[in-house]
């Protein structure tokens, strides 16, 4: 059975139909053709599909698309302002935190949610914020550097 989902994605109102069993990730990628959020484990363990749902990072692969009705969703496509990258995106580039890049959109969404909460994250805050994201290229130190740099830039410290 099909359901109509009316939601707000990256500030834009969207309405589309999908099978009731559709996950939010499938709705984004397959129904709306927004391929930035990545499909990887599809079990809520790797974080590649992370989006921000009413201000909170969630795994879109284990969220029912129908639950997006009436919610505010932010995806990786909503961060850059035209050609100007979001400070978190720019920091990932500047510190070399991107290797194969597949996990990067998920990381960036987790980090954006963290820096929306605080621009002075502690080491424990950073670790908690990305503990649900896996990078198989194992570039974790540079990712932590990127988070610190993004925080400093957003707070005007760098």
């Amino acid at each position, binding site marked *: 059975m099909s359901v109509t989902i009316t939601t707000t994605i990256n500030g834009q109102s969207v309405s589309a139909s999908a099978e009731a069993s559709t996950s939010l990730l499938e709705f984004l990628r397959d129904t709306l053709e927004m391929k930035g959020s990545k499909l990887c484990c*599809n079990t809520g*363990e790797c974080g590649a599909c992370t989006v921000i749902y009413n201000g*909170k990072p969630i795994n879109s692969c*284990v969220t029912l698309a129908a639950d997006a009705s009436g919610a505010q969703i932010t995806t990786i496509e909503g961060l850059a302002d035209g050609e100007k990258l979001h400070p978190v995106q720019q920091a990932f580039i500047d510190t070399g935190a991107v290797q194969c890049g597949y996990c990067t959109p998920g990381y960036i969404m*987790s980090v954006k949610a963290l820096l929306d909460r605080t621009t002075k994250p502690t080491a424990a805050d950073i670790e*908690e914020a990305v*503990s*649900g994201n896996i990078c198989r290229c194992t570039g974790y130190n540079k990712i932590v550097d990127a988070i610190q740099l993004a925080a400093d830039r957003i707070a005007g410290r760098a």
Partner: protein
Amino acid sequence: MEYFEPKSIGDALSLLSKHSAEAKVIAGGTDVMVDIKFKEEPGALVNIKKIPSLSGVSESGGAIRIGALTTIREIETSSLIREKLPVLWEASHQFASLQVRNTATIGGNICRASPSGETLTPLLVLDAKAVMAFSDGERIEPFTSFFQGPGKSSVGAKGLLTEIEIPIPAAGSKGVYLKHAVRGAMDIAMVGVAVLLTPDAGKNNVQEVRIGLGAVAPTPIRAPKTEALLRGKPLTAALVKQAGALAASESSPISDQRSSAENRRWIVEALTRRGLEQTWKAATGKEVV
């Protein structure tokens, strides 16, 4: 697959009565969505997230009440939980990842009835109760009898867990939740042990102690023989050692991809000892000697 979003407990119960054989309840979805994608779609999906008043943490009548739809993150960030039920806070804090905690609900973790469910051993040692709605009325049952096997609980196919009622532990009691897993975040516990200990007024003897063991039996369990051994006695190193071994014998673990049964028994022994030492020290200010 049929799909429903009931707006009241009554509507949800009617749907479950009508479709019980093929219906599945979904809340946060972190477990159910995986079943849908990797196992099979149920005939009908009943999404209970739109039912108002099933969410939130409150205190009344000497108990903390948690709505079944309250997310693990809401529990983790509740000052009431942190202050009054630190053992549940610890389990929530160690629960999967931030993304999962933001969506997973305590009711889902309970109704999933997994032996390794993170919040379950804390609820057992806190003597918490499940408040359930059925078409013929409400039923309240302690979690000590609620779990019946992996995935099986008193809620069954036609009931709905609505609230968790947790009596505030006696003044002076201390609790701890210890999880053994390879990776800190995300991992399912190889073994989880919750201990809640209350010393007597002179802080010389164990007045009350409750021990919960997770992932080492078909359901999360209490260790009643170990608890009986400890009650009324001063907590010496020799007694702690004896208690660890007895707790291991009360468990009945299986071997799986996460651990062998033998290893699990060792971990039960070690975590029980550690839990007793830590709660004793926190409650009495004294080391176990």
